[in-house]
C-alpha cells in the first residue's frame, strides 16, 4: 500500500494491545498482498508459482470481490487491467484491510475511532470530545483547502482524484486518464466497496455522475467536474 495508516481511537478504555492487533493485521495484509514484495502471495501467483486454489483464503476472498466489482462497474474497476495477465488487487485491498481493521476494533469494544489509510477512511462514533467526525474532502485545485466537509458517526469515505502523486486512475477500456472530472468521493457502509466505486466513477469521466446516481442503497457520491461544477447524489451527507 505504501501509505501511512492513521488509527485514531478516542475510547479511553481501549488498550494498546488492541491497537497492536490492528497493526499486526495490516502488516499481514501487506506481507500477503504487496506487489512490491517478491515473497507475497500475489507476487507468487503472478509468477505462476502459486495456484489460486492453494493461496490464503483472504487472497481468494479479495480476488472474488474484485471480480464482482468489475462486473458491477461495467469493467471500470478492473484489477487486471493495468498489467495484462497479472493481478494487482491493491485497489481493493486497502479499503478491505481498513474495513477488517474496523471489525477488530468493534470486537474489542471501541466505539469512537477513525482508521485512515492514505485519505480513505472508516469512521465510527465521534472524535471525542466532539460528537462526530468532521472530514474535509480535498479541494482538487487548491491543495490546502477542502471543497466540502462531511460530518459522520458511522461511515466510510473514499476519494479518487487526479492528483500529482498517488494512484493514477485510467479508464481500463482506453488506458487513458479520464477527462472532465477532478475527483469523485463515495460514502457508504463499506470502505472497500466505496473505494472501488470511486475508482470506477472517476475512470468513467463525465459519465461518472450518471452512474453514481444509481448506486446501491447506503452509498452516495460527490463528483467534482473539471468545470468546477459539483454534482452530488441526494443522499450525500451534508454537515
Amino acid at each position: 500500500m505504501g501509505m501511512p495508516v492513521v488509527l485514531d481511537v478516542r475510547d479511553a478504555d481501549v488498550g494498546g494491545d488492541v491497537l497492536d492487533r490492528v497493526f499486526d493485521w495490516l502488516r499481514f495484509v501487506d506481507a500477503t498482498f504487496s506487489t512490491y514484495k517478491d515473497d507475497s502471495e500475489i507476487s507468487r501467483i503472478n509468477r505462476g508459482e502459486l495456484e489460486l486454489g492453494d493461496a490464503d483464503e483472504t487472497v481468494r476472498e479479495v480476488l472474488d470481490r474484485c471480480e464482482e466489482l468489475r462486473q458491477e462497474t461495467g469493467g471500470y474497476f478492473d484489477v487486471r487491467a493495468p498489467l495484462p495477465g497479472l493481478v494487482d488487487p491493491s485497489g481493493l485491498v486497502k479499503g478491505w484491510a481498513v474495513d477488517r481493521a474496523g471489525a477488530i476494533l468493534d470486537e474489542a469494544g471501541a466505539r469512537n475511532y477513525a482508521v485512515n489509510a492514505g485519505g480513505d477512511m472508516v469512521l465510527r462514533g465521534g472524535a471525542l470530545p466532539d460528537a462526530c467526525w468532521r472530514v474535509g474532502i480535498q479541494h482538487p485545485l487548491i491543495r490546502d483547502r477542502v471543497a466540502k466537509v462531511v460530518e459522520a458517526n458511522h461511515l466510510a469515505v473514499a476519494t479518487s482524484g487526479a492528483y500529482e502523486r498517488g494512484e493514477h486512475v485510467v479508464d481500463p477500456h482506453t488506458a487513458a486518464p479520464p477527462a472532465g472530472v477532478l475527483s469523485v468521493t463515495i460514502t457508504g457502509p463499506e470502505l472497500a466497496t466505496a473505494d472501488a466505486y470511486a475508482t470506477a466513477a472517476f475512470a468513467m469521466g463525465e459519465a461518472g455522475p450518471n452512474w453514481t446516481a444509481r448506486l446501491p442503497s447506503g452509498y452516495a457520491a460527490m463528483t467534482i467536474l473539471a468545470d468546477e461544477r459539483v454534482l452530488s447524489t441526494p443522499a450525500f451527507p451534508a454537515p
Partner: protein
Amino acid sequence: MRKAITIALTVTALAVPSVNAWASATAQKTIPKKKVVVATKSFTGTPGSADRWGNVQVTIVVKKTTTTVVKTKKVTVLRRITNVAVPVFPNHTDRSIFINQQALPYLVQETLQAQSTGINMVSGATYTSQGFVQSLQSAILSAKAW
C-alpha cells in the same frame, strides 16, 4: 506497497494503560496516599510538507496525569492525546464560480467551494495524508518532552 505500513500512530500510543493500571492498583493496596496532578496542553506540529502546494499542520491536545506516591515519591506519568485537529485551513479564500446551469434531476448541483474549517481528517489526497502524519509525529514528540 513498497514501504509497507510505515507509520503506526495512535491516540493511545503515548499511554501505557495496562502498566499504569497495575501501578495504581498496587499503590492503592500498599500506600494509599497519592498526589494526582492533571494538566492539559496543546501541541502544534511543525508543518508537514504537502509538496509544492503548501503545508499541513496538526494540533493535538494532551492530558498529562502525574501521580506521585507520597511515601516512596514514585512518580507515574500518563500522557494521553484527547484531541487531534487539523488547523490546515486558516484563511478563507472563496474562489467558487457560479455556473448557472440546470441540475440533473437526480443529482444536486453545487459550485466548487474552498472551505476553511476545523476538521479531523482529509479524504482524497495522499500528499495531505503524508503531511498530516509528519506534523502529527512532530506534535507527539513535543508532547513526549513535556
